[in-house]
């Protein structure tokens, strides 16, 4: 297997960790993991059955009735955001490169405070089911909803392919199942959770998964630290002895300032433009719970990244050069000390080193649960964009019957699930590392600028949002295609036309400038009305007067 590190630091860019790409070897059937996984599936299907009985209206389906608490939602957001690829990928990156793993994880965290300060409460006060509700609040429904839905679906599908391919490979590694079976299994379970249990089941799958993942990772980190009497200096010193001193300092992850800034923008604004993340804010009762959600989510995610750092170093001292985990066949060919299954398995081997077969099974099952939670959230967000934005708002002009809308949403879920299974299998052998990067670039360059300016800028008009948002989306897509990750790594050309891996600095600027320019030059009557409508929207956004409430069951 090509270690993930190669992809991360070599050519494919930072998002490869999220995509978990590269060839893997199938492992022998892992029984304890499969039993624990079956327990998880049984429990979550039980929850889905319970949730299905409580999911009667469209509001239940999209937002779990709006009655999730801030703490629960914070947990669910963390469960939505901490993917299996980030657990295994970041610990593998720390295992391989040390400090660079920490730099990488920090980028994925710092968007959260910005979401809290700028969008969380306003989003809750203005929206109902999707972020397009907010973006199109005072603008013309058809064009803005269509663009927002397109941005959502594009983001969801790209992210979903990356997760599906990662899932198939991971399950091959962990459980010894065939790739196709693994992908179909993930797709079918995700369709079951979402169509029957809607947001309520999805939320609880995410909460349980977050709890299991945080507990498992905490146990591993404590077990590692206990070996070194909870002294970091001793742990680091042992790790440096086994590798070399370079693991304690920044390596090649961030090299030039333009890339550093562009990557930061993609991660920050991209996180604030991911439809499945934004949708989670409609599941709580009011702005206060929305803000508490982000506080808890930031805490859980930050804590998780600190744990993965310790786990990565734990793997250096307990897995690296440990004959038990050495891939002898590979060592004979390539030399060095490769571990079985590749670097992505560092955390998995560590779980065996600290907790034996039983704990290995537990962590493998948690990794699978993690994938299910992430893909369910994505699918629900994609299905909502289709049913709520495209069907109910664009096609039916807001006059759709709630039950019919829910039905469309369930059909959309099944279709998205099938598409995800198909694409997951089709992209098995492809280098899909660019997909998560592209998803973040689109989220940052199309979704976020429209959402942000619709909340804060009174002079925004439909024309500005439509043209500027499309410009951002196109710029992001074109620059990713012409950049090193697609033009060179995917299409096999010798040199990239656009030199930077992360286009966000350019595409986000293009979106903001485009929206500004096409708004201020818009002299139409509707534009004047849209500007007038800002005051009422602003008051609702700031105070929550007139906002959607929770329903009682």
């Amino acid at each position: 297997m090509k270690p993930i590190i190669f992809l991360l630091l070599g050519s494919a860019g930072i998002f490869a960790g999220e995509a978990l790409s590269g060839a893997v070897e199938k492992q022998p059937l892992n029984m304890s993991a499969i039993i624990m996984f079956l327990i998880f599936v049984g429990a979550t299907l039980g929850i889905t059955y319970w949730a299905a009985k409580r999911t009667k209206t469209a509001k239940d389906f999209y937002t779990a009735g709006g009655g999730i608490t801030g703490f629960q939602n914070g947990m669910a957001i963390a469960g939505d955001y901490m993917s299996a690829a980030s657990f295994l990928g970041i610990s593998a990156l720390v295992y391989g490169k040390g400090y660079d793993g920490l730099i990488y994880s920090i980028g994925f965290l710092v968007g959260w405070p910005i979401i809290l300060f700028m969008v969380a409460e306003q989003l809750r006060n203005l929206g109902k089911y999707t972020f397009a509700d907010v973006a199109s609040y005072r603008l013309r429904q058809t064009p803005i909803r269509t663009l927002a839905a397109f941005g959502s679906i594009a983001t969801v599908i790209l992210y979903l392919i990356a997760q599906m391919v990662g899932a198939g490979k991971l399950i091959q590694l962990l459980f010894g199942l065939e790739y196709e079976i693994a992908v179909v299994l993930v797709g079918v379970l995700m369709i079951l959770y979402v169509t029957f249990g809607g947001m309520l089941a999805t939320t609880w799958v995410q909460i349980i998964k977050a709890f299991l993942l945080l507990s498992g990772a905490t146990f591993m980190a404590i077990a590692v630290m206990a070996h070194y009497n909870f002294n970091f200096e001793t742990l680091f010193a042992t790790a440096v002895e086994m590798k070399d001193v370079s693991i304690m300092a920044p390596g090649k992850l961030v090299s030039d300032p333009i890339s550093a800034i562009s990557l930061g923008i993609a991660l920050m604004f991209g996180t604030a433009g991911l439809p499945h993340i934004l949708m989670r804010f409609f599941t709580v009762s009011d702005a206060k719970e929305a803000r508490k959600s982000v506080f808890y989510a930031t805490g859980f995610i930050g804590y998780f990244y600190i744990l993965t750092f310790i786990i990565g170093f734990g793997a250096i001292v307990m897995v690296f050069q440990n004959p038990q985990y050495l891939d002898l066949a590979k060592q004979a060919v390539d030399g060095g000390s490769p571990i079985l299954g590749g670097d992505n398995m560092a955390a998995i081997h560590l779980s065996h080193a600290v907790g034996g077969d039983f704990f290995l099974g537990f962590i493998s099952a948690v990794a699978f649960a993690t994938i299910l939670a992430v893909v369910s959230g994505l699918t629900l967000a994609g299905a909502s964009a289709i049913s709520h934005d495209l069907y109910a708002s664009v096609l039916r002009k807001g006059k759709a019957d709630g039950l019919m809308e829910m039905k469309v949403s369930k059909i959309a879920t099944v279709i998205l699930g099938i598409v995800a299974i198909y694409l997951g299998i089709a992209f098995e052998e492809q280098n899909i590392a660019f997909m998560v990067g592209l998803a973040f670039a689109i989220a940052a360059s199309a979704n976020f600028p429209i959402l942000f300016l619709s909340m804060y800028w009174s002079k925004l008009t439909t024309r500005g949002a439509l043209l500027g948002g499309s410009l951002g989306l196109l710029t992001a897509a074109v620059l990713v295609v012409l950049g090193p990750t697609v033009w060179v790594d995917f299409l096999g050309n010798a040199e990239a036309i656009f030199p930077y891996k992360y286009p966000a600095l350019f595409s986000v600027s293009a979106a903001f400038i485009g929206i500004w320019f096409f708004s201020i030059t818009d002299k139409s009557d509707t534009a004047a009305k849209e500007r007038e409508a800002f005051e009422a929207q602003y008051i609702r956004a700031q105070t929550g007067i007139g906002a959607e409430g929770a329903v009682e069951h």
Partner: protein
Amino acid sequence: MKQEMVDRIKNDPDFIQLVTVRSKFAWTLTIVMLVIYFGFVLTIAFDPSILGTPLSAGSVTTVGIPVGVGVIISAFVLTGIYVRRANSEFDELTRRIKSKAKGEV
């Protein structure tokens, strides 16, 4: 929302105080977060050796470790600072604005 209500709320001193104080606070915290994060990555881009310096002579732990963990903790602390003030001061102002608006919606 009726136009009279919009006009009344936008001139409500509580509303004016809420939006000015909260915007200023939110922007300040945003800028603090941006400065911390971009300060961190640009340090790495321009001079990675700063973070690779040992904490003290003979130690393996580098300056980068507490700095990196510090960035993570700062993100959490900043959200905590915001939530604490919003839960008390901003929610009280919002409650007052809403109670005055009651019956008008």
